[in-house]
């Protein structure tokens, strides 16, 4: 059984964190996404300005707000502003 959430960082978010993915342990009942991201920002302060302009995707859906819960096995992707085309 997975007990962690996988955080994925793209483009400038990856550069700020220095890794494309980080696994974070969460309790079985889940955790508040916002708190999880804050703990990453504490370790990687350069992520903060990027996070402010990024979209957040949990298991293939955009999420917003501060009360989103994540559970073990979830995948959360940080998407800085897109620049494709």
């Amino acid at each position, binding site marked *: 059984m997975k007990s962690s959430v*996988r955080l*994925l960082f*793209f*483009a*400038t978010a*990856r*550069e700020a*964190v*220095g*890794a*494309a*993915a980080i696994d974070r342990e969460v309790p079985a009942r889940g955790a508040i996404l916002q708190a999880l991201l804050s703990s990453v920002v504490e370790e990687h302060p350069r992520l903060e300005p990027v996070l402010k302009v990024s979209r957040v*995707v949990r298991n*293939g859906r955009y999420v917003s707000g501060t009360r989103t819960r994540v559970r073990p096995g979830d*995948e959360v*992707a940080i*998407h*800085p502003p*897109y*620049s*494709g*085309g």
Partner: protein
Amino acid sequence: MTCEITSRPLYLAGVERHLGDPGSGAVVLFVGRVRRETDRGRRITALDYETDRAFVLQQLGDLERQAIQRFAVRRVYVIHRVGRIRVGAASVIIAVAAAHRATAFRAARFLIEKLKREVPIWKANRWARSPAARRRRTPPPPPGRRSPG
């Protein structure tokens, strides 16, 4: 309706077979290419494109559905290349087939504008003659992999 992400070169020839439809009198294609550019004397030699592969096709498919509903077009095909793309090569091809040209033009324009804002693809410049600028803190993950393992 089809969308694709590929790390291989894009050619117009490959697009044609997606557009066959005797009811479509008009096809409009948009090809985005890596353009030669300089910034304070530095020259871009390529762009590195990356995407969130687990999410991008869903977003592209959603865009295509929007275009079809909104403009009553008959066929939509979008292919975006990722990885390193050199100056002059195509990064994206968008193709729309419709009964009439006005709708085909509008839908193609809609798709490229929306793609730039709503589809998880990112590019980073590759510069010539500036080793410092070429240094990357973290290399992008290899194509086809969702995590660095």
